[in-house]
């Protein structure tokens, strides 16, 4: 059975290890933007997820709580298709034990939901195998991030979010053109909107950093695996400002961190509790979900997080190393979370920024074309 997820921060390894196929909803057949009354402030993406959940009776859909409209979209569909939809509570904060526990509890609950759909609780060995496979795929994708052409990279990440595999098109080298390197930052860029990548290239630019929701950003921040001890020393005691990040982004991809964390869990549980790695006793499962939660929480890079400092740190490193000259901020109608970042992004990085509103039409509108062309013209 296919389990569609609406945010990259839903642990796909957990879904896969339960015997299902995790599928990024952005790339599903039939995931399309219906005409919506945009003047009413309705987000076309949230509406599309809602419609997809209603129509797609052979799979299940995981909504997330990270935005108003997805939360309420879930409310709307839960009445009619309750058994096939799940609302995953993504904590907005990330520096506290409470956030980690909330994440872990949600992973547990997701496991119960998956079991209700006929899935099986994975053994640690199964989970580690899945984590290793996804980790390898993420690593390969991240290695190609700075060299792969935008469209090919979007396709490769889409493939990863579809079946966990990595498959680069034959031609993956960046053309030595004088194209202006841009960062595409913002909300989801589903397959139907990939025309934007071509549009940017046709106008003389190239997307050197795809930081949309299912782009490179979805592969994780690359923070180190927790060492097994969740240190909160100093929190709330005045010794350390609460807004200070717990850890600085490093270069280790999410799944490597996850694998490392799970290894720690596995070894300690087998040793301390006498668990068999091929069984799924409750204590081991809890430790595994806690590790998943901790690692996902530490690797999440998104606009809804509070504070959102990790998003800026992640961007800063990549904008610099890829010599990005401008930012295209891709947002949906009604998406205050991204729209509000336009000015801070300008101020933080000192780069020209183009606000581009996602339309319901595939391939972009005349207005969109005109804006992109004018933006790139300004670099000449």
């Amino acid at each position: 059975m296919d389990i569609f997820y609406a945010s990259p921060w839903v642990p796909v390894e957990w879904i896969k290890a339960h015997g299902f196929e995790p599928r990024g909803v952005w790339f599903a057949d039939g995931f399309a933007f219906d005409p919506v009354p945009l003047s009413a402030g309705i987000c076309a993406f949230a509406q599309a997820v809602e419609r997809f959940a209603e129509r797609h009776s052979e799979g299940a859909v995981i909504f997330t709580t990270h935005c108003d409209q997805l939360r309420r979209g879930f409310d709307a569909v839960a009445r009619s298709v309750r058994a096939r939809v799940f609302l995953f509570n993504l904590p907005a904060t990330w520096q506290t034990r409470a956030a980690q526990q909330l994440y872990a509890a949600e992973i547990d609950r997701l496991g119960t939901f998956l079991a209700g759909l006929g899935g099986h609780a994975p053994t640690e060995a199964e989970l580690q195998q899945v984590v290793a496979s996804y980790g390898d795929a993420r690593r390969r994708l991240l290695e190609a991030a700075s060299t792969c052409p935008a469209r090919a990279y979007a396709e490769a990440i889409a493939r990863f979010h579809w079946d966990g595999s990595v498959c680069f098109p034959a031609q993956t080298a960046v053309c030595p053109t004088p194209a202006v390197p841009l960062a595409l930052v913002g909300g989801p860029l589903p397959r139907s909107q990939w025309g934007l990548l071509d549009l940017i290239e046709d106008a003389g630019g190239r997307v050197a950093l795809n930081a949309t929701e299912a782009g490179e950003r979805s592969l994780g921040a690359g923070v180190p695996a927790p060492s097994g001890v969740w240190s909160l020393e100093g929190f709330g005691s005045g010794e350390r400002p609460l807004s200070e990040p717990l850890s600085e982004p490093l270069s280790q991809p999410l799944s490597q961190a996850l694998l490392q964390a799970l290894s720690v869990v596995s070894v300690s549980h087998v040793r301390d509790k006498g668990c068999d790695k091929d069984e799924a006793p409750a204590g081991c499962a809890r430790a595994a979900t806690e590790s998943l939660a901790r690692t996902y929480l530490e690797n999440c890079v998104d606009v809804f997080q509070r504070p959102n400092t990790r998003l800026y740190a992640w961007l800063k490193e990549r904008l610099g190393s890829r010599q990005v000259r401008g930012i295209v901020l891709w947002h949906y109608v009604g998406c205050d979370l991204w729209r509000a970042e336009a000015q801070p992004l300008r101020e933080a990085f000192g780069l020209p920024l183009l606000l581009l509103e996602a339309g319901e039409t595939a391939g972009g509108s005349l207005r969109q074309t005109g804006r992109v062309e004018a933006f790139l013209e300004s670099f000449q």
Partner: protein
Amino acid sequence: MTSRKLTLSEWDGHYAQLVRGGLREPAYGGPLRRHVVLEGDLRLRQLRFDESPAALRLWNFLLTENQRLRLARAQGAKLVGAMKDLGTVPVMAYALPGLRAFYPDGAWWTPCLMECSDGLLQQAEALGLDASFCPVRAMLAAFVSGEHFPLPDLLLCSAGAVCDDFSAIAQRLEPMGFPVVWWEMPRRRPPEAGEPEAELPGNLRAPQVQVACVREELERIGHLLGQLAGQPLDDETLARGIRQANQVRRLLAALRRAVYASPSAPLPALEMLVAEMLAIHFCSDREETVAVLTDLLAEAEGRLREGRCAIPADAVRVFWVNPVADLRAMNLLEDWGGRICGSDYMFTHALDLIPEHLPPLEALARTALADPMVGSTLERAARIVADCRAGGAEAVVVSRIPGASHCAREGALIREVVRRELGLPSVELEIPPVCDALLPTLSSRLQALIETARAKRTA
């Protein structure tokens, strides 16, 4: 017999008469006119007010909040800016001596009160927050200008299942030099089968794991408040604070019962809206809130005894959902033949009693989780339906807040449930901070609703 509603000009003469008659007022008292002259609260010229001294006290209390906060600071109090949770953090802060909590969010009414002469919305736009955001964007400009509320010593904000626009605006504060302490508010969900659960105020339930999450977060916030106050927020102190908050909530409950349940409303909708707002942070003075509400309740009960009303008995009973960005809208409803018989101004959890039989932090966590905005819209709609039944509602108004991210979807969901469960007519109205330009539209939509409800009486 109907009690009069007075214009600002009529209040000038009425005030002089009351003073001649020996009116006794608190330190913040005085004629309403001075808020226009001294503070630029121009909107008062368009409002109509209840004629009672109790209402005068209520308005003066509301409109002097910033001055009272500045005075409190000058006298050594520490100020806590609580953002978004609407009713939780202030209970903790007021439990401690020397702390005053207020909601910078309240700046969303400043453009209305000052008829946009404050320039806050324009300043917000210059900061990158245009009209596609909720009017609460005025808060960001107010922080930057520092001319409205005093800058708090500690700034707290709930995050998670909260309005996106508010969260996005609050996030803008940090790089501007206003550090924010964020605390997690999970999206409330029904407990799964067999999952340990807890009862919440408002006849709600939540899994114990969510209550524990909020409790832990509030404990962290409590430590910070204790540090600021120089005294720990222990269980005994918090329990006392909860009892005092419940005193306010009991008074409000009695007032709401007296006004909303009566055949003819003894107090107008506008004053009731302001009175309800006192619940969330006591308008920066808990003891005075008790006094203001006590006066209002006495006025309402006195009028009921004497058969005097503010709104005639044949007015259509309307349940109102969401607060209005322009206070004038509450006058307009009554002008066109409606009256309020119940409300959900987005903080029903601040009206419900905080359980006193539980450990205090647990009780507060459960109350915070009962926030109508953090749970399912369908649960919110269910409470609206129950309250409509209790208040004998004949129609429902869902007022949209311009640019508010939650409004895009919730209105339709709520109205659908109301229609299915009660068969009541309903309308969704978008009310901007100054609604004068939309009066013809608002008028025709509200009149149509009232007429439809009246027609149902005779059908």
